[in-house]
């Protein structure tokens, strides 16, 4: 059993604490009395993952073992989580590869010929052949690509199936091949509590028509938080859609969870509590930080983007989604959940170089917003770590950088839409439709490697709950122009940021730093 998570009170003996700041990191001395939330220590990984997979496939929850679901002549579709999971990407072999290989072996043994593999990328950019290869492994790639290993295409209307509407009137439209299969095997990685479960098929294989029912401002404002499914309007919608899908097609879910081994051993200090750093950790901190600062920007990005995590797998569970997912969530909580007493006036987050949408790409300002006010702010159960009207302080340089191929609609969103307004409701009503149906963006999404035209809007909605909750948002080290464009402020140092926060929370606010790395889910009481 590893050490549970805990909340540190900063006192005179507390060393400066580590935080991410984009493609870099720093040690920051926090004001006395500040609280710091640490997750439990990284759990030990399963030693024999292949055996665990086999065990899960043969002993599923709530359904027959996988081999018994496979029959000759059937249509089998294997869907797997796309590039957005896990973060950073895991060292090869990817756990998805291991699972898919075993599933394919079982299918082959049962004489199943009609097998398709589909990446559940929804409106995300297509995975490149190289990225697909890395995820499913050489053997599978060579055998199935390109005819039977594909990205989901949410704009290929001939290959979408409208299954009907939920009782709330939500359209359910997903990939036709999957919908018309005899069995969908969904291969998942649940990195945070928001992933997996009902979300897998209903989101990963859906179209804009279907997604807009839960990816909207109203739903996100009522998802408190989206990492706490019972209290998430978004997940309620997923569940309703999942119910409808289950009436049409059988889904065999395989969910996996990972531990907190986010960085390779050369950067082991990133996974450790600061006062426990030994001489080697301190030396490597200085060396890595210095080297990182000296590198040319391009090389620095290349190195960060090629970092792969030596995750350990903490659980593999298969079967009916409704029975599997609670176990999966339990595993996530075991690794990430830390109980916190009460909210504070100020929350501090160090934002890393990566989010689900900039793998092998560029973290643009919109993504920074969604990472900070969306993903990190929502890493809570019950209540946010910061009180209503409080201040969030993020560490990130927010550079004015965009990937021209991956994020074309983001560039236009930033230059033309955010200059009009930053109000999510206004943007949603006035501009969403236009971006979502723009033929040029659709062409780029389908044929190039672009995120769908509507995606920047979703990123903005992702932060809608935080925008409503917070009194002020300050980026330490943030580019003045980009932060201002998004309606935020930037400060040079934490002291300046706290000075700026004074107007909102007074001169001696209570402060909580949600420590990252690694990921922590705060259970605020």
């Amino acid at each position: 059993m590893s050490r549970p998570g805990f909340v540190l009170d900063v006192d005179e003996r507390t060393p400066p604490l580590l935080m991410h700041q984009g493609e870099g990191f720093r040690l920051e001395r926090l004001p006395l009395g500040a609280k710091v939330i640490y997750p439990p220590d990284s759990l030990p990984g399963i030693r024999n993952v292949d055996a665990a997979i086999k065990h899960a496939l043969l002993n599923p929850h709530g359904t027959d073992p996988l081999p018994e679901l496979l029959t000759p002549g059937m249509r089998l579709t294997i869907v797997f989580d796309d590039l957005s999971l896990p973060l950073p990407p895991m060292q090869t072999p990817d756990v998805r590869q291991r699972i898919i290989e075993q599933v394919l072996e079982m299918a082959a043994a049962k004489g199943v010929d009609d097998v398709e593999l589909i990446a559940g990328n929804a409106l995300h950019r297509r995975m490149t052949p190289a990225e697909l290869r890395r995820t499913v492994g050489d053997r599978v790639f060579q055998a199935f690509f390109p005819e039977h290993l594909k990205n989901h295409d949410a704009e290929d209307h001939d290959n979408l199936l409208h299954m009907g509407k939920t009782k709330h009137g939500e359209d359910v439209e997903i990939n036709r091949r999957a919908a018309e299969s005899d069995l969908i095997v969904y291969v998942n990685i649940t990195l945070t509590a928001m992933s997996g479960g009902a979300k897998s098929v209903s989101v990963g294989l859906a179209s804009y028509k279907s997604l807009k029912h839960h990816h909207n401002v109203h739903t996100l404002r009522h998802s408190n938080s989206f990492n706490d499914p019972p209290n998430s309007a978004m997940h309620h919608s997923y569940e309703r859609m999942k119910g409808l899908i289950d009436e049409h097609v059988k889904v065999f879910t395989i969910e996996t969870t990972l531990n907190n081994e986010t960085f390779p051993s050369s950067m082991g200090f990133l996974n450790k509590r600061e006062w426990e750093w030994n001489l080697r950790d301190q030396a490597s901190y200085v060396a890595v930080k210095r080297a990182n600062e000296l590198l040319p920007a391009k090389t620095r990005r290349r190195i960060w983007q090629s970092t792969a995590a030596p995750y350990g797998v903490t659980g593999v569970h298969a079967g009916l989604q409704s029975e599997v997912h609670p176990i999966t969530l339990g595993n996530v909580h075991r690794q990430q959940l830390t109980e916190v007493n009460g909210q504070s006036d100020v929350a501090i987050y160090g934002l890393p170089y990566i989010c689900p949408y900039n793998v092998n790409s560029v973290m643009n300002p919109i993504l920074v917003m969604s990472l900070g006010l969306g993903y990190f702010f929502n890493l809570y159960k019950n209540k946010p770590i910061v009180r209503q009207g409080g201040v969030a302080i993020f560490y990130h340089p927010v550079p004015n950088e965009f990937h021209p191929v991956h994020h074309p609609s983001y560039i236009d969103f930033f230059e033309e839409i955010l200059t009009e307004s930053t109000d999510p409701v206004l943007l949603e009503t006035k501009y969403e439709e236009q971006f979502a149906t723009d033929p040029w963006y659709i062409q780029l999404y389908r044929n190039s490697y672009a995120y769908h035209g509507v995606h920047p809007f979703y990123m903005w909605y992702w932060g809608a709950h935080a925008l409503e909750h917070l009194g002020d948002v300050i980026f330490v080290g943030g580019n003045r122009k980009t932060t201002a464009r998004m309606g935020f402020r930037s400060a040079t140092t934490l002291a300046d940021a706290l000075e700026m926060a004074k107007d909102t929370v007074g001169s001696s606010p209570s402060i909580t730093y949600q420590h990252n790395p690694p990921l922590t889910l705060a259970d605020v009481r």
Partner: protein
Amino acid sequence: MPTIGESQRMTPDRHEFHRLGSSHVLLTGATGFLGQATLEKLLSSHPETRVSVLIRPRPNQPAQRRFDGLLRKPVFRRLREQLGEEELRRIAAERVTVIEGDLGEVTLPGDIDVVVHGASTVSFDPPIDEAFRTNVSGVVTLYEALQRAGADPHVVHVSTAYVAGVRKGVVPEDRLDHTVDWRTELEGALATRADVERDSRRPEVLRKSVSRAQGEHRKAGPQSVVAAAEEARQAWVTDRLVDYGRARAQSLGWPDVYTFTKALGERAAEEMWGERRLSIVRPAIVESSLRHPHPGWIDGYKMADPLIIAYGRGILPEFPGLPDSVVDIIPVDHVVNATLAVAAAPPERGTPAYFHVGSGSRNPLSFRGLYENVRDYFRKHPMPAGERGHIRVPQWRFPGSRQVEMMLSGSERATAVAERALLRLPASGKTREWMTAVHRQQTNLDFLRRYADLYQAYTQAEVIYDDSRTHALHRTIPPELVDEFGFDPSVIDWGHYLQEVHSPSVTELMRGFSRGRGGSRRTAAPALPERTDIAAVFDLEGTIVASNLIESYLWARLSSLPRSQWSGELADLARSLPRYLRAERRDRGDFVRAFLRRYEGADMAGLRDLVDDTLGDALLQRVMPEAVRRIRAHRAAGHKTILITGTVDVFVRPLAGLFDEVVASRMHTRDGVLTGYLDSPPLVDEARAAWLRRHAADTGIDLDGSYAYADSYSDRPLLEAVGNPGAVNPDPSLYRHAKRKHWRIYEWGAHTRGRGDVLLDTITGTVSAR
């Protein structure tokens, strides 16, 4: 008080003050600086005088309209305020007769008592024939017209003090002392143009201008070359004629053709009217009013003003001039008063009278004094410099004209060399920054050169114009009328005049201009109009994508070759590169043709697949997002979007969706294999403009409302074909052209990925595994 008129043909008494009374005055050059002031004075201070003004009509502007416009000018501001708009117009209609036409053809009234002949060329270095036509022929036609009309007025001929030419010491108020025959000179001057025109058509001259035009404009196509060559020929003719004028003037002892022709004009006047009543008034450097109609009144920039402003803008580091030479400046109201006083006091028949109107003899202002006053003025009231505070004016040391000349010609050479070097550099933000600096430097130097040459005679003059006759006339004015009619230059306090009156007046316009520009130098692009009958035309390489033919070739070639053969391919390309560059410099079409030969033997279907799989993505990585946004904005506004490129059509497939019309080169294939030849000539330089005009005519597109975007000088014809041209990341030549023509210049490509990154990703398959 005695007045003169038709009825009183009295002998003038030099010791009595006369007024014009009810005389009928004919004014020529009424729309000019001196003319306006004279007309105003006649209307405001000579209530009984009748005035006729001779005004040449302009296209769409009859003389009467020009005259009405005159009444709305600042010179009449005071009178308008005193009398009211209506009353002024009524008085003008009652007292002023507008005679429309040229001196040569009009019929003048027979009852004219006085002519004030103020019409003259305002330029110092016009072509020789133009100078003679205005300043000599103009005089002749005036007297011929007067003779035709049977009038016998007293003519006040306005000349200039500088007709005395280059000399030292005191110049008396007398007939000029020279023996130049004005008729011979006039004849010669008028014939010069034909000679020069003939000269300009000599094959050696033509070849030279064509070859120079080719060097600069070949990229833009043959028509641009010949247009530039013809323009150069015409400019050469003008330059020659200016040079003829200056050389002839200087060979006879005048500093420039202006003073030379004015001197001959005096001679003509003496010959044609000397037997009657003729007065010649010679003002020095006429500048803004001291008092009337209001202090500081001036119409446009006069002789000293460009220098004052240039100095205030900090671009005159030095100026050739002797610090102790006299700058003979005289306020315009003094000149007007003197002229009208002369007009009222005709000399005896057969003895023309001469008057110098200047400050040099009675109240001399040294060049150093002028400089110091202007410097002090700008120190107290510096010119604004946009966002960068205010301009600091330089301190002159008067190093002498030789030194200044050396500095000037040195800088000119350096700038010319810098520009030639820059024009050969590839397009980049840095090049454009340098180009801007050179452009500014060049403008300043051109300015300095022009004025240094022109004004040498005036700023190095060691001459005093005696004005005792003029002063004697002034002394006849009764003390109570001196304020209104006086012209004694000794009342001028130079410090007050230069710092409080003149400098504020001439810098006012510039200050307003700077204020208007203030703050943001980059004005936002105006919104696109919603119309369906206009087009937005885009060039591809350098405008929409940052890549070029060679780059896309490398993507295609290296990603389909085994790595072991890369070095061979790259070496071969490197060897051929000089050849391609030469072709590119010569003619864009030659380059396209030469380069596309490399595709010989490639499989068309394979190439198409490669584009769809790999190269299309590489192209999109090199796209400039601002360009795409612009294209889409045009589309959203209903405009027809057109892509015109010399690139092969297969390569533009990923972008085709943005355009209503794609015009690209097509490669010739035999059995699905590329032959390395094009199906038709590549659409470059003028061919693009020609295609666009034709297309516009066929489809009813309004080119004047249309837009075009391109990056290379070879696209100049295309850009000129539309009403809204835009230079995108322009190459140095196009940048220079766009600056001169005030075209909109765009800097695009903020988020475009680097050339090396994309090439590496493409050929190593990071983007898509192969």
